[in-house]
């Protein structure tokens, strides 16, 4: 029976071509869309975690209230002791201190006076301790454009765009003017060890990267840090694990009545990330639902047109004794075969495109010139096992549902009037 129907479909292209093309397009879009959102949103989460939020972040309660303002006067103190406690209590996690600070980057002339200057955002991390993992996490070595990574506490990396604007080269002195933890003016001479381009516009516009030891000297923050970020083993953020850790930590160390006691928040609870995480989780279902509805409508319409065109054929089949149910089931089986063929072709194209974009990426930097979102300029898809089968769901369901609706007309045909119809 299947062979018979298959032959019919292949020999009569007018019956199969349009539905297969429709299914192919829909399945391809579902498959590619799944890998796109997986890659884009997942990449955004990873970048945000690595550069901004960690999987969990520890701050003072007062700092957490105003964290967007980077209020270093409310920073954590006695950080080394707190790090020891964190490492002992949660040995499978990796914790590292960071400081964010704003200020002015000033380049001197030969007389030590201002030659050029620009506002900058400082990002201080533990660059000199290889065990902290920050060089790898932030892809520092891969991002260096000129010079090298800092090897001394008083060395910094400057965003390449900013360095060119200020006409500063590796090896030259750059002075940071900022505020100390106590609110005093902070002046500190750093040496530019290199320039850097992360491919993240929010960072590449005007940031500097310093080792945390140098930043602590500059900002008078000995044994202090704005925040401690924590990362769990493996590449994927798991909200339940992070939330369990945060709940345990806060129960042990955080006191409502002490605004300077530490508090831990998860990645999901920072910067509106929960919405993005929920989107990543729900995107497969959303895409499948959309394409089932759209393709069902298209295929229903196409089935109706096909039924009209096959009016004579169906009439003859009824006239020679096939029951309405047999014809209806045969058409449904035809639709499943079309769905399978379209889904196979659509998945093959969608996954191939997905793998290509995963490998080459698409540069959206020009669209993000004014953006402050922490995401890579180059978007890459992420093809997972789900990408391989997700297109089959709308591919098969839509053809089946479309045909089921279109085929209802078969039951309305009156056998008694068949011969009159066939005379026409």
């Amino acid at each position, binding site marked *: 029976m299947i062979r018979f129907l298959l032959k019919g479909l292949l020999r009569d292209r007018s019956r199969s071509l349009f539905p297969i093309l429709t299914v192919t397009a829909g399945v391809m879009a579902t498959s590619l869309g799944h890998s796109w959102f997986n890659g884009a949103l997942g990449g955004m989460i990873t970048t945000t975690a690595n550069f901004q939020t960690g999987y969990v972040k520890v701050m003072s309660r*007062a700092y957490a209230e*105003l964290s967007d303002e980077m*209020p270093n*006067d*409310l920073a954590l103190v006695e950080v080394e002791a707190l790090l020891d406690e964190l490492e002992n209590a949660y040995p499978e996690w990796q914790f590292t201190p960071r400081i964010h600070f704003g200020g*002015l980057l*000033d380049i*001197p002339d030969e*007389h*030590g*006076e*201002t030659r050029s*200057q620009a*506002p900058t955002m400082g990002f201080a991390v533990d660059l000199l301790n290889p065990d902290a993992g920050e060089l790898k996490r932030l892809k520092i070595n891969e991002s260096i454009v000129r010079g090298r990574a800092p090897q001394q506490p008083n060395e910094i990396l400057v965003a390449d765009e900013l360095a060119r604007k200020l006409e500063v080269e590796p090896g030259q002195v750059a*002075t940071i*003017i900022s*505020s*100390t933890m*106590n*609110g*005093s*003016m902070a*002046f*500190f*001479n750093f040496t530019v060890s290199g320039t850097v381009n992360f491919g993240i516009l929010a960072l590449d516009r005007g940031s500097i990267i310093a080792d945390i030891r140098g930043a602590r000297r500059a900002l*008078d923050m000995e044994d202090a840090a704005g925040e401690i970020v924590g990362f769990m083993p493996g590449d994927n953020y798991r909200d339940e694990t992070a939330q369990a850790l945060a709940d345990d930590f806060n129960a042990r160390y955080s006191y409502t009545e002490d*605004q*300077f006691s530490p508090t831990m928040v998860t990645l999901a609870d920072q910067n509106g990330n929960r919405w993005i995480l929920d989107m990543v989780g729900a995107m497969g279902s959303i895409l499948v639902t959309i394409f089932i509805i759209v393709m069902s409508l298209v295929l229903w319409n196409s089935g109706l047109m096909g039924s009209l065109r096959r009016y004579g054929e169906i009439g003859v089949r009824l006239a020679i004794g096939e029951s309405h149910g047999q014809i209806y089931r045969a058409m449904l089986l035809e639709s499943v075969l079309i769905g399978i063929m379209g889904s196979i072709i659509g998945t093959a194209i969608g996954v191939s495109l997905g793998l290509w974009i995963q490998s080459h990426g698409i540069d959206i930097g020009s669209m993000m010139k004014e953006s402050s979102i922490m995401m890579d300029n180059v978007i890459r898809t992420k093809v997972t096992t789900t990408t391989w089968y997700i297109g089959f769901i709308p591919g098969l369901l839509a053809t089946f549902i479309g045909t089921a609706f279109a085929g209802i007309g078969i039951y309305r045909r009156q056998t008694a009037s068949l011969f009159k119809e066939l005379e026409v």
Partner: protein
Amino acid sequence: MIGVTSMNRIGRAIFVLMVSQLTPLLNGQQQPTAKELLQALDDNMVAENRVTVSTMIIHGRRGSRSIQSKSWTQGSEKAYTEYLAPARERGTKMLKVGDQLWTYSPATDRIIQIAGHMLRQSVMGSDLSYEDMMEDQTLSEMYSPEIVGSEPVDGRDCWILELTAKNPGITYHSRRVWIDKERNIALKETRYAASGKLLKEALVKEVFQVEGRWYPKHMTFKDMLSTGEGTEFIVDSIDFNAEIPDYIFTKAVLRR
């Protein structure tokens, strides 16, 4: 720099509140015109030369700290301040000439021009910004005044003067100044954005008489957008019309 320099000239902003030794006409309780009140404030704020030593106490969420400074001021254009204490600030200097501001840090041996975005930042963690310090026009030049009523401040009867910016580009779109009717000194000031949002508030806690002028001895300044507890200014000493050598207002003095 903020200390008394602000009180004298750089901080005309702050010192609107300051001394307001008005004309005898005003002393007689007769209602002055708004322009007379404002002109009297301007006349009082600008001295030919002024040397002041002041202490600034900054109250933050983690505690308070004091900064002492000495300032030399000439007219409304030039001011030079040297920080005296604490040790971390000692030797930091600031020079304002016209609309330019430089700072010197002994730790880096750098003379750095403060400009652009940095002008909006807090100075020394206080409730004052560099923009507050950079105001160098008189209030009469910047604002149109109107007397909107009278009200007691700390038990003293005051005129309420409302100032509206003549030019939309200036830092504060409007201000309200409460002027002691008897002593003719501003005791309170509030500053607003164009939206009407209150940005800063200053209160004079204590006044004293110097060379015939009533002058604030102790005042508080609060940035209403910050979480700190405000900044206090205390005038330790002030010398009007002191001799100030010309080199004081050159960049060379910063490294001296």
